[in-house]
């Protein structure tokens, strides 16, 4: 048992080493060199350099790097990171000073307290960004006012004095703190970089760019954002808990909401989109402080206030220039127009043909908006390997029907059964997981992502090891799964004929290509039922053949397809069965020929006029 586990671990380590060696390049050597140089700074006893100030800056950089995940990937403007640092700092300070805990467990407890606070206040991640900003701003003030109001906890204006205790078994000198902070910063940056490259980063960025589209592909907004927000909070808490040990005193005055703002400034200044941006921003603020100090003394201004003003002005300046920050700007200088090329994949061969067993059954669906009944008593059955077309005049309730089946809105009455299971009350994300995918009517795509990445967002619901922690640790399973997900996404692209455009940024695709991309992303969720809204909208006659072939290929894979379509030429090509809606009810149902011959349908489409 143990031997087998060890053998497996050994094999994984060897495989990881091989992968690492394959990717190792001059950049990696440069990074290791720079890191070693940085680690040697405290031993160099440079004139005018205070190691404790440097260590403190590194702890701040740690908190800022964590914030980068919230601001950069998730796009949430958090003004409350200082509050989480304060919670970590005072939790650990109280445990060390009052309960006599050693430093390391106290620091972990501080991180845990900050994590708890992050989870409790984490409900705000579901809100619009303006509300996220205002809630986190209030949180920063709440924690600060609490510390001021309760001197029995915060030590009042003197703060809590901490006894000197060993850190990682060593005398807690500034140098030891510096090395600990540097190690934590590097590990955090690596973990965040891995998470950003993996499923969490991709899905967070998808949610930031187009929440509706990401939700339609089964990405859970609340879960993904909460994970990032809470992880940021915990890391900020850890940074605060350790920094307070370095300072030797927990002083409420240093957790003014300005701290939160300064961290946000650092993130934006250094570049929220880059993992190393926030740390660079902290370094830049530190340098500015070095210049601002003497200047303030020259002008007879109190230094602390001056620091504030400089940071504020600087930020406004950076933002006014529309800048993305220092690191993205530097990266842009170095790397220009590089785009990797990969071999085009072929679509996977279709699975063995399946019997036309029914997979989704809707009965008596009804939905009213105010007094207007959009869908009234709609019943529908979709079977594997069968393409059903939902047609009808404008305003007949087609899109509402699609929304009800996909879970985007819930019916007022009626039932939806998926493979014998009642799914009437479930919402989009869980229905995607159960196998119902839908493309949206608009030609939206995630504009900051490539075609392949767009499709990978849809692949997310089939991942089992794509959580934040696993992705950040790059566990063997997560890495294997990432590789498999990429293969599946490439095959989905090939199925719709976009295999040559895998690495093309989404905005460079034409609008009909973007429609196909949306179809590929929906296919990547491995649906049993695929709902397609207006595939042929705006398509020229010459494109119809291609579209029909694509629908045919999807159909061959045993997927139950429901197309809502205005283009009756496409309907005639692909539909096995046609359902005609008018004023929210089914007017006729049957094969294309039957429906076309029906006099009620002719009346609905042509009116009662005789030609």
């Amino acid at each position, binding site marked *: 048992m143990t031997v087998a586990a060890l053998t497996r671990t050994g094999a994984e380590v060897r495989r990881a080493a091989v992968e690492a060696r394959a990717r190792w390049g001059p950049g990696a050597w440069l990074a290791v060199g720079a890191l070693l140089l940085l680690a040697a700074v405290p031993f160099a006893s440079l004139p005018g350099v205070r190691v404790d100030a440097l260590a403190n800056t590194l702890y701040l950089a740690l908190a800022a790097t964590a914030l980068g995940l919230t601001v950069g990937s998730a796009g949430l403007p958090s003004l409350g990171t200082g509050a989480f640092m304060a919670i970590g700092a005072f939790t650990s300070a109280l445990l060390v000073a009052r309960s006599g805990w050693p430093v390391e467990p106290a620091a972990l407890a501080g991180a845990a307290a900050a994590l708890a606070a992050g989870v409790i206040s*984490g409900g705000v991640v579901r809100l619009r960004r303006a509300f996220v900003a205002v809630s986190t*701003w209030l949180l920063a003030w709440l924690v600060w006012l609490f510390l001021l109001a309760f001197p029995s906890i915060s030590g009042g204006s003197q703060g809590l004095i901490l006894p000197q205790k060993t850190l990682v078994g060593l005398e807690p000198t500034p140098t030891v703190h510096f090395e600990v902070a540097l190690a934590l910063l590097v590990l955090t940056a690596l973990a965040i970089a891995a998470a950003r490259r993996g499923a969490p980063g991709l899905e967070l960025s998808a949610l930031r760019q187009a929440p509706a589209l990401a939700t339609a592909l089964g990405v859970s907004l609340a879960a993904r954002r909460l994970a990032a927000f809470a992880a940021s909070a915990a890391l900020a808490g850890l940074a605060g808990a350790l920094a307070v040990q370095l300072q030797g005193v927990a002083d409420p005055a240093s957790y003014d909401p300005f701290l939160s703002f300064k961290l946000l400034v650092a993130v934006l200044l250094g570049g*929220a989109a880059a993992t190393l941006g926030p740390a660079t921003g902290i370094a830049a603020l530190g340098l500015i402080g070095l210049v601002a100090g003497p200047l303030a003394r020259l002008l007879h201004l109190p230094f602390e206030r001056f620091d504030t003003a400089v940071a504020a002005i600087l930020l406004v300046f950076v933002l*006014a220039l529309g800048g993305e920050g220092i690191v993205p700007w530097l990266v842009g200088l170095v790397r220009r127009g590089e785009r990797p090329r990969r071999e085009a994949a072929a679509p996977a061969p279709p699975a063995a043909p399946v019997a036309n067993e029914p997979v989704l059954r809707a009965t008596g669906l009804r939905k009213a908006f105010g007094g207007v009944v959009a869908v009234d008593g709609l019943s529908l059955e979709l079977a594997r390997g069968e393409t059903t077309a939902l047609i009808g005049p404008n305003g007949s309730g087609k899109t509402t029907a699609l929304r009800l089946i996909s879970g985007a809105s819930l019916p007022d009455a009626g039932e939806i059964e998926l493979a014998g299971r009642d799914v009437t009350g479930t919402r989009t994300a869980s229905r995607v997981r159960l196998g119902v995918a839908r493309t949206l009517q608009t030609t939206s795509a995630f504009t900051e992502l490539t075609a392949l990445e767009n499709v990978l967002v849809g692949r997310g619901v089939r991942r089992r090891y794509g959580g934040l922690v696993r992705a950040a640790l790059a566990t063997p399973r997560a890495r294997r799964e990432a590789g498999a997900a990429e293969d599946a996404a490439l095959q989905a692209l090939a199925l719709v004929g976009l295999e040559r455009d895998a690495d093309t940024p989404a905005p460079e695709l034409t609008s009909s290509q973007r429609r196909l991309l949306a179809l590929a992303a929906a296919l990547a969720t491995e649906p049993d039922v695929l709902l397609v809204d207006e595939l042929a909208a705006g398509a020229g006659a010459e494109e119809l053949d291609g579209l029909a072939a694509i629908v045919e290929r999807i159909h061959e894979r045993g997927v139950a397809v429901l197309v809502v379509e205005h283009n009756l030429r496409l309907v005639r090509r692909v539909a096995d069965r046609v359902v005609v809606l008018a004023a929210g009810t089914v007017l006729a149902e049957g094969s294309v020929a039957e429906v076309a011959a029906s006099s009620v349908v002719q009346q609905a489409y042509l009116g009662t006029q005789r030609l």
Partner: protein
Amino acid sequence: MTIALQVLVSGLAAGGVYGLFAVGYSLIYRLTGIVHFAFGDLVGLGVFTTLLVLAGTTPVSRAGATEPRFLLALLVGLLLCVLAGIATYVGLVQPYLSRGSTVGWVAGTAAVAFAIRAAIGATFQRSSYVFPDPLPFHDVGRSGFVHLGGAQVQARAFFVIGLAVALALASAWFLERSRYGRGLRAVADDAEGARFVGVPVELLVALAFGLVGALAMIAAIAAVPGEAVNANTGTLLGLKGLVAALAVRFGPPLHAFAAGLVLGVIEAAIANVHLGGWQLGPSYREVLPLAFVLLLISLRPSPEALEERE
């Protein structure tokens, strides 16, 4: 009973000021969809400019206020508050709104907030200042306090309550009836539509940014002579107003004002009410309402506050 009356009067007086701040936040949110983080500090800027013109940075006596100079000082302060509000919109909010950058206006307005606080702190370096009293409340009753059924109540409180209610009603009436108010409501309803039919959206909104500042500043000036002021005064008043506005999810002006009144009374009750030997005390005054509203918004958000997903 005595204490209840005292709590009610002082709470309503404080709450009236919070309420007018809340009206400002609410109106700005409804017009632009942004939260103006520098709002409280801009009002603080107006208050301290008034103080600067009136008496410089040295501590002043109450007597200084009776001079005709007070009117001049008040006008300068109001003008600066209005202009700074307009400048904030034109320079820091509108450019980012048109670019669709949330982080831009969040960081921009927060930057202004901290910069103003720093500037006030650097100019007025004592820990607190007394704001001279423009009105002779000091001579009413026993050095400014009146007895009311056994309770000791600040005479100023009645004036502040009356003024705040009058201002709130006036602004609600103004929004409802005047041409400018109708324009603002059109913008709040549908900015693109308003622009399409020829409403000068940018101008109206910029003016609104200035006017809500003046509104809040008048209330603050009426209330501050009662207590010591420092660089945090505007910030904290703004914070209370924001809490009240958030509690009603940036609802209509009169809702926001009412929320401010309620917040004031709750704060006074937390600080003063004993219930059978059990008392929360002044330490909880600032913290509890803030924590409550924060939990409310985090755990039970209203549908319109949620990120649009469909």
